[in-house]
């Protein structure tokens, strides 16, 4: 016994807890897979797949010959020729066009009335029916394309009739609409990349989730929290060690995710849509910087929720609810599109969302916005960590069931 030397001992509580938690969790296969494999890699893969599918869908429908069943083609050979010139491949008539569309046998069916030729010769308006089902996915683009062809044909014929009567075709077009889209290639990409900020936050969340549960609710359930608190280390130091371990895992998760985006980003055929997008090292580093306080905030919130829960399972349930929280800014911006104000950068989650979109948009992030984003979230992280420390102090926390 060496009671005399005891006061000289200084426990390196924070570091000891941090290293032990990291080491222990590096041995857990489930935590490893979710933090370093499925969590960070699934989102980029999913994202690239979705973007690829949506881009190819749009391109496909625009370029490819479009097969359209025609009813009454024999009444309007000139119209059919015009459609063929526009890439439409006429198909034989179907018996029940409404049913065919509903069953998705065809995206749309064109029906030309038997009285077409007679009315045309008299110079009366004739009707061409486009039969489709707008509730079917994928019908929009072909319907729009066929409608445009029909309208163009109608305008051409109308103009020729006016000329034949000695009038200028301009008479029939009092107003000309000229669309001038101000979107740059990159700002168009933003629409598609709107979900990117959420994916990053989700990656951070999943990366730290198992640890957060394991280090509080799990430790109490396994009855190791009470002996741990019998050591001469203040509880706030123990908590900070655990918090740092959670942060280390979620930060590693985000880094892997960003690397994956950097590699995989090259496979997004953005140039096909005339977009420019840079997911390279510069982008990755800025996102990482932007998310640093968010990593701490989420880890503190996860620990708080897990400390409230009575068991591992209960903590899991609560945390899956908490996972919805980062969706809010994305949904909000989608539902009520408002102009980003300066102060919004200081709001956690919203700030990161706007900041990342700024980066994607290629405007760069102003130092002022960056400072607000970091400062606002850091303050929230501090508050959340402080609240969790208070929770750690409670007597109830240590007692296992």
């Amino acid at each position: 016994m060496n009671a005399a030397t005891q006061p000289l001992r200084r426990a390196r509580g924070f570091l000891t807890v941090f290293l032990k938690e990291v080491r222990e969790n590096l041995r857990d296969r489930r935590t490893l897979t979710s933090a370093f494999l499925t969590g960070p890699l699934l989102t980029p893969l999913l994202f690239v797949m979705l973007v690829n599918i949506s881009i190819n869908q749009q391109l496909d429908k625009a370029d490819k010959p479009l097969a359209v069943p025609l009813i009454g083609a024999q009444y309007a050979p000139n119209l059919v020729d015009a459609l063929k010139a526009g890439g439409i491949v006429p198909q034989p008539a179907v018996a029940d066009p409404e049913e065919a569309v509903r069953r998705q046998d065809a995206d749309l069916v064109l029906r030309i009335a038997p009285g077409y030729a007679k009315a045309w010769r008299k110079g009366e308006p004739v009707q061409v029916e486009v039969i489709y089902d707008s509730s079917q996915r994928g019908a929009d683009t072909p319907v729009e394309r066929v409608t445009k062809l029909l309208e163009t044909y109608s305008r051409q014929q109308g103009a020729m009739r006016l000329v034949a009567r000695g009038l200028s075709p301009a008479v029939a077009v009092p107003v000309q609409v000229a669309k001038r889209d101000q979107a740059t290639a990159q700002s168009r990409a933003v629409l598609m990349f709107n979900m990117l900020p959420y994916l990053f936050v989700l990656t951070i969340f999943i990366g730290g989730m198992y640890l957060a549960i394991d280090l509080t609710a799990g430790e109490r359930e396994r009855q190791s929290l009470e002996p741990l608190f019998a050591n001469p280390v203040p509880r706030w130091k123990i908590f900070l060690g655990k918090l740092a371990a959670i942060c280390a895992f979620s930060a590693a998760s985000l880094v892997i995710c960003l690397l994956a985006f950097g590699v995989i980003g090259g496979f997004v055929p953005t140039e096909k849509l005339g977009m420019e997008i840079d997911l390279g090292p510069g982008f990755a580093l800025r996102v990482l910087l932007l998310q640093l306080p968010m990593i701490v905030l989420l880890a503190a919130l996860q620990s708080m929720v897990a400390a409230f829960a009575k068991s591992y399972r209960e903590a899991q349930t609560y945390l899956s609810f908490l996972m919805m929280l980062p969706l809010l800014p994305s949904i909000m911006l989608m539902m009520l599109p408002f102009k980003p104000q300066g102060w919004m950068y200081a709001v956690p989650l919203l700030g990161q969302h706007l900041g990342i979109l700024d980066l994607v948009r290629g405007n760069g992030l102003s130092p002022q916005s960056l400072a607000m984003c970091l400062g606002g979230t850091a303050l929230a992280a501090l508050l959340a960590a402080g609240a969790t420390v208070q929770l750690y102090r409670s007597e109830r926390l240590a007692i296992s069931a």
Partner: protein
Amino acid sequence: MIEVKDLHKTFGAVKAVDGVSFAARDGQITGLLGPNGAGKTTTLRMLYTLMAPERGQVLVDGVDAAADPLAVRRRLGVLPDARGLYKRLTARENIDYFGRLQGLPEDELRARREALVAALEMADIADRRAEGFSQGQRVKTAIARALVHDPRNVILDEPTNGLDVMATRALRQFMLHLKAEGRCVLFSSHIMQEVGALCDRIVVIARGRVVADDTPDALRAQTGQANLEDAFVRLIGSEEGLAA
């Protein structure tokens, strides 16, 4: 030396501990005996500063637990009622973790750890992960990590709970060994045999109060019962929560 003076603790309307006072001296084994729910665990939890008493004082080697809880924890080795290990760490790693939290230098830690591994006869499991340990192996590891910093005072909450006969015998030997080293050993139990065989002094607790505090022989004499179990029943006034 552990001194407890007039401890009080309530949970809602329940008075879990209602004015408990006793002392556990160095070089002695003191038994805290009482039926289930008598307030033994709550009293011990206030001793190792997991809970704060509403009233009263805890002194460990003269240090006030309320004034300097960290110093008190340095002087205590605690085997709580909850004795969960870290299953993904080996027995040695479990012990090292607590040694480092106690602030032991690495060389001292290594020496202490190996001495305990030898004394508790756990060399065969020392490098196995705690996952799948038997109850006895778990208790050995938990005791080793509780004593790694060589504390003068040892608190054991129902240490033989769930142990088989052989493990229980080994544990009793180990407690006598701690006493021989001059340490203050305080343990709780509701098992008569154990308390009678080991203790120099018995503190009987019932309904949150100390109903007797003396040597086993004195207790027998005081109650007029030759058998300690009968003495105990007489003291607490009922047969609830007894195990032979």
